C-alpha cells in the first residue's frame, strides 16, 4: 500500500519532470517559429524593401493619358470638312468584370444594345488584351447616358465616357480627299511600336486610315498629355498629383474649295468619273472628285460586314479613288503634249501645213488607222489639227517622231510618274517607252518585249499603251498653262497650330521649269483656245465666255474597234463605251484654274466632259451657279460662323 503510494508519487515526480521538458520543448518550438517569421519580415521589409516600394508606387500612381483633340480639316475658306463632336460611350474593362456576359445582359436593360453592337464588341474583345477598355456602345443618347451613370455603382469595370468623335459633314463628296479614321488595328499598333510612337498614342483609339487623315496623321493627332493620379484598388482616381496638358493636333487648311467641289459633284450627278482642278499659281488642288464616293462616317467605328461587302461588290467601285488611282488612256487630250514633242523635235513648225486625211495607213501595211472625221480635214496646221482633233495628223506625227522622241518630252509634263500629291497610293500609270515595254513584258518573251514601229502610231492620239490618272492629266495641263513651271500638286495649303493660331504653309516653290521656248507654249495654248472656237471640237462650250479659256477634248477608247466596224455607242455595253475626257484652263493669259475631267463610259468628250469644265470655270471665275444644279447644291455654312463653332468644339474639351 505504501509502496504503491510511493510509486505513484515517483511516477508523479517523473511525470512532473516530463511535463517541464515538454514545456521547454514547446517554448523552443515557438521561439523557432517566431525567428522564422522575423526572418520573413527581414526578407520583405529590408532585403526586398526597394522592390515592394516600387510596386506600392506603381499601385498607387497611374498615368492617365489626356487625349489631344484631333486637328480639324478646313477648306480654303475655312469651312470645316472634318470635325470633332463629343458623345458618350459605354466602355467596359473586361479584367475588372467578374461575369462579363451577365454584366452585358444587365446593361442591355439600360441601353439599347443592337446585335451589331454586340458583334463589334466581341470582335474588339478578341483583338484586345484583357486590361484594355473596350467600347460596348458608342454615341449613347443623353437619356441612356444618364441611366447608366445613375446605375454605374452596380457595374465595376463599366464606365460612361465623353469622347470626341470624328464627323465628315460632306460625306461622299470628300471621301476620296479626306479619307477617314478608324480604330487602331494590330498591324498599326505594331507600326506605332516600331516608330516609337506608342507613348503618344496611349489612350488613342483612332488613327487616320486613308486620305489626308492618314497622310497628315502626325499633324492631326497632336501630343498626348498625362495626368498622374493616385488611384485606389478599384482604379478610381482619388486625386491628381501632376498634370501635363496635351497639345492638340494641328488644323489642316486645304487649297480645296468645298463649294467648287460641291458644284463639280452635282455636275457629275450620278455619272462615274473623276475631276481634278488645280490652281496653276501654286499647284493647290481646288477640287478633287472621284465618283461615286462613299460615306466615310460609316468606317470610323468599324464598318459592319454587310455594308462593307455591298461597297466592295458594287460594280461602280465607290471605294476606288479614281482621280488618284484610276488609270485611263488620255485619248485626244494627249495631243497638246504630242504637239510639244513634235515642236521640240523640230519636225514641224507653227504654220506648217500637213495632210489630215480620212485614214492613215502605215507604209507596207493594210491596217487602217481611222480618223474621227472619215472625210478628213485636208491640209492643216498643227494648231488646227489640235482644234479639230485630227487623228490621222497625229498618227503621222507620232510615226515620224518615234517613241524615243515622244516619251522624254511628254514625261516632263509629269505623265506616267507620281505627281507627288499629298495622298498615299498614287498610281503611276504608263508612259510608253522601249524600256517600259521591255520591262513590262519581260516574262512574256523576247518578241513581246521588242518595241514595234506600229506601237507608236496609236500613242500619237493618246491610245495604245498610254495610261494616266486624272490627277496626272490635270497636273500636265497645269504645267502647260504655267508655261512649263512645275508645282507639286497639293491638297493641304496650311498647317495651323490651334493654340498659337500660327499658320505654316506647305512648300509651294516650283519644282522646276521646263526648258522649252515660250513660243511653243504660246502656240500650243493658242491651239487649245481654238478648240473652243467655231470649228473646234469644243466649240459648243466655247460660246458666251466672259474670260479666255483653253481646252482639249478627248475620247478614250475602252475596247478596240474591229477593222471596218463603226463605233456605235448604243450598240456597245455601257462598261465598254468610251470615256469622255476634257482638260482645260482659264483664263489663258494668267491661268487661275486648270482641270482634267473624265466621265467614264460617257462617250464623246466634247459632249459629256467639256460642259462640266465650262460650268465649273464659270462658277469659279464669275460666281455663276449652273442653273441645272442650282437647287441641288449643298448648304455650306458661312466660314466665319463655322470657324467660331470649330474653336468652340476645341474649347469645350
Amino acid at each position: 500500500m505504501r509502496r504503491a503510494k510511493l510509486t505513484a508519487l515517483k511516477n508523479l515526480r517523473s511525470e512532473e519532470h516530463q511535463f517541464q521538458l515538454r514545456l521547454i520543448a514547446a517554448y523552443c518550438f515557438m521561439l523557432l517559429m517566431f525567428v522564422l517569421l522575423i526572418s520573413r519580415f527581414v526578407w520583405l521589409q529590408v532585403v526586398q524593401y526597394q522592390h515592394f516600394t516600387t510596386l506600392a508606387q506603381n499601385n498607387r500612381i497611374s498615368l492617365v493619358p489626356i487625349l489631344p483633340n484631333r486637328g480639324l480639316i478646313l477648306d480654303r475658306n475655312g469651312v470645316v470638312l472634318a470635325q470633332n463632336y463629343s458623345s458618350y460611350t459605354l466602355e467596359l474593362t473586361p479584367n475588372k468584370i467578374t461575369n462579363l456576359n451577365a454584366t452585358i445582359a444587365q446593361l442591355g436593360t439600360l441601353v439599347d444594345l443592337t446585335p451589331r453592337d454586340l458583334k463589334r464588341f466581341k470582335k474588339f474583345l478578341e483583338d484586345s488584351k484583357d486590361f484594355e477598355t473596350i467600347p460596348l456602345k458608342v454615341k449613347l443618347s443623353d437619356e441612356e447616358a444618364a441611366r447608366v451613370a445613375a446605375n454605374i455603382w452596380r457595374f465595376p469595370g463599366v464606365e460612361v465616357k465623353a469622347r470626341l468623335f470624328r464627323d465628315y459633314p460632306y460625306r461622299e463628296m470628300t471621301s476620296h480627299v479626306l479619307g477617314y479614321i478608324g480604330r487602331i488595328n494590330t498591324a498599326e499598333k505594331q507600326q506605332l511600336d516600331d516608330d516609337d510612337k506608342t507613348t503618344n498614342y496611349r489612350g488613342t483609339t483612332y488613327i487616320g486610315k486613308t486620305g489626308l487623315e492618314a497622310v497628315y496623321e502626325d499633324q492631326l493627332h497632336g501630343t498626348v498629355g498625362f495626368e498622374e493620379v493616385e488611384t485606389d484598388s478599384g482604379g478610381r482616381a482619388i486625386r491628381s498629383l501632376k498634370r501635363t496638358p496635351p497639345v492638340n493636333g494641328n488644323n489642316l487648311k486645304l487649297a480645296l474649295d468645298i463649294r467648287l467641289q460641291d458644284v463639280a459633284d452635282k455636275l457629275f450627278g450620278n455619272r462615274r468619273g473623276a475631276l481634278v482642278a488645280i490652281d496653276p499659281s501654286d499647284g493647290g488642288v481646288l477640287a478633287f472628285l472621284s465618283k461615286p464616293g462613299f460615306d466615310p462616317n460609316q468606317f470610323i467605328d468599324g464598318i459592319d460586314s454587310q455594308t462593307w461587302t455591298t461597297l466592295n461588290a458594287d460594280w461602280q467601285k465607290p471605294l476606288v479613288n479614281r482621280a488618284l488611282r484610276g488609270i485611263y488612256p488620255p485619248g485626244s487630250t494627249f495631243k497638246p503634249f504630242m504637239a510639244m514633242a513634235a515642236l521640240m523635235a523640230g519636225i514641224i513648225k507653227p504654220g506648217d501645213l500637213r495632210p489630215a486625211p480620212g485614214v492613215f495607213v502605215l507604209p507596207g501595211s493594210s491596217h487602217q488607222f481611222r480618223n474621227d472625221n472619215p472625210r478628213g480635214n485636208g491640209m492643216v496646221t498643227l494648231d488646227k489639227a489640235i482644234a479639230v482633233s485630227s487623228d490621222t495628223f497625229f498618227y503621222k506625227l507620232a510615226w515620224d517622231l518615234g517613241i524615243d522622241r515622244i516619251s522624254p518630252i511628254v514625261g516632263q509634263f509629269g505623265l506616267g510618274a507620281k505627281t507627288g500629291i499629298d495622298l498615299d497610293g498614287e498610281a503611276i500609270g504608263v508612259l510608253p517607252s522601249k524600256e517600259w515595254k521591255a520591262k513590262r513584258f519581260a516574262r512574256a518573251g523576247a518578241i513581246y518585249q521588242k518595241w514595234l514601229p506600229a506601237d507608236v502610231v496609236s500613242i500619237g492620239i493618246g491610245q495604245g499603251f498610254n495610261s494616266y490618272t486624272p490627277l496626272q492629266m490635270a497636273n500636265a495641263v497645269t504645267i502647260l498653262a504655267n508655261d512649263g513651271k512645275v508645282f507639286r500638286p497639293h491638297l493641304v495649303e496650311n498647317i495651323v497650330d490651334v493654340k498659337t493660331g500660327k499658320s505654316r504653309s506647305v512648300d509651294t516653290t516650283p519644282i522646276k521649269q521646263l526648258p522649252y521656248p515660250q513660243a511653243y507654249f504660246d502656240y500650243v495654248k493658242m491651239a487649245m483656245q481654238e478648240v473652243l472656237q467655231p470649228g473646234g471640237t469644243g466649240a459648243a462650250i466655247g460660246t458666251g465666255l466672259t474670260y479666255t479659256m483653253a481646252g482639249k477634248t478627248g475620247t478614250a477608247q475602252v475596247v478596240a474597234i474591229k477593222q471596218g466596224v463603226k463605233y456605235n455607242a448604243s450598240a456597245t455595253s455601257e462598261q465598254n463605251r468610251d470615256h469622255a475626257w476634257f482638260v482645260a484652263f482659264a483664263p489663258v493669259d494668267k491661268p487661275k484654274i486648270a482641270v482634267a475631267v473624265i466621265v467614264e463610259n460617257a462617250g464623246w468628250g466634247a459632249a459629256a466632259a467639256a460642259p462640266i469644265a465650262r460650268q465649273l470655270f464659270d462658277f469659279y471665275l464669275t460666281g455663276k451657279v449652273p442653273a441645272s444644279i442650282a437647287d441641288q447644291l449643298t448648304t455650306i455654312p458661312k466660314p466665319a460662323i463655322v470657324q467660331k463653332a470649330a474653336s468652340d468644339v476645341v474649347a469645350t474639351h
Partner: protein
Amino acid sequence: MSSQLIKRLWQQIKDPLDGWLMLFLGLIFLLSLLVLYSASGQSFAKIDNKLAYTALALVIMWVLARTRPQVIMQFAPPIYIVGLLLLIAVHVHGVTVNGSTRWLSLGFTRIQPSEIMKIALPMTIAWFFQKYELNLRWWHYIIAGMLIMLPVALILKQPDLGTATLILAAGFFVLFFAGLSWRVIFGGVVAFGASLPVIWHMMHDYQQKRVLTLIDPMSDPLGAGYHIIQSMIAIGSGGPLGKGWLNGTQTHLDYIPERTTDFIFAVYSEEFGMIGNLILVALYLLIISRGLMITARAQSMYGRLMAGSITLSFFVYAFVNMGMVSGILPVVGVPLPFVSYGGTATVILFIGTGMLMSIGKPRNK
C-alpha cells in the same frame, strides 16, 4: 472613507487578475486601437464597437478569472455536448455563405458553433485527463483523440479549414502536455506527410487554390493571388521603419482586403514597419511566456493542460495570422489575436485569458 471604499473596490476588481497579462494585453490593445483607426479610414465607428465588445469580454474574463478552475471544469462536458449538437445542427440546416455552411440562425442573430469548440474542446480533453489522471492508459489517448476528431471532422465538412486546424491544434496541445508519446507524435507527422496527396484530393477547389497561390502567388496575380500579393507589397513597402501612422498607401487606397479583420497585420506592418513588427512579436512572446509560467505553476492536471493549450493556441493564432499575411502560410481565416476587429473572436480569446488567470491564481486549498 470613500477613498477606502474605492480602494477596496479596486482590490476586489484587480485581485483575480494577472498583472503581467493585463499589462501586455493593455499594450497590444493600445496598438490595436491605433491600427484599427487607420484601417477603418479614421472613423470612430469601429473603435466604439471594439471598446464595447472588449469591455464585455473583460467582464467575462474577470468573472472567469475569479472562478476556481475546478468549478469551470465541471461545465466542460455539457458545453462540449451542446457544441457538438450545434455542429450537427449546422449540417442539418445551417446558413450558407460563400459556399461554406458555418452558421446557425437564431432569428435575431447568427452563431458559429465552431467558435464554442475553440474553448470547449481543450477544456473537455483536459477534464477527461484529470478524471483518469492516476491510471492513464494508452486507450485514454485514443478516446481523447476521438473526442478531438469528432468536432474537427464536422468543422472540416462545413468546410472551414482554418477553424478546424485551430481546434485540432488546441486539442493536440492538451494531448501533448498530457504526455502523448513522442513516438506517436513523430509517427503522426510522418503519417500526415504521407497522406498529403490524399488530403489534397479531399480538399475543395478554393482550398487547393489557396495552397497553390501560396506556393506561387504570381501565378494568379489578379485572381486568388491578388490579396496575398497586395498584403506582401504593404508589408514590404513598410520597410524597416514603416510609412508612419495613417500614411499607408496600400491601406488607404483600398488595396488591402479585409484590412480591419484578417489582414489587419498588413496595415500595421505597412505603417509601423519592421520595428513595429518586432514590438508586436515581442508582446506576443511575453504573453506566451507568462502563459507558460502559469502552466508550469499550475497545481492540477486540468490546470496544466488547459493553461498550456490556451497559451499555445494564442501562439498558433498569432503565428498563423502573421504567417498568412506575410505569405508563408496559406490564407486561412484566422484573425490576429487581440488586434483584429471582431467581437466573437475577441470574447473567445478573453474567455481563454480568464481561464488562464483563474489557473494562475494562487489559492489556498
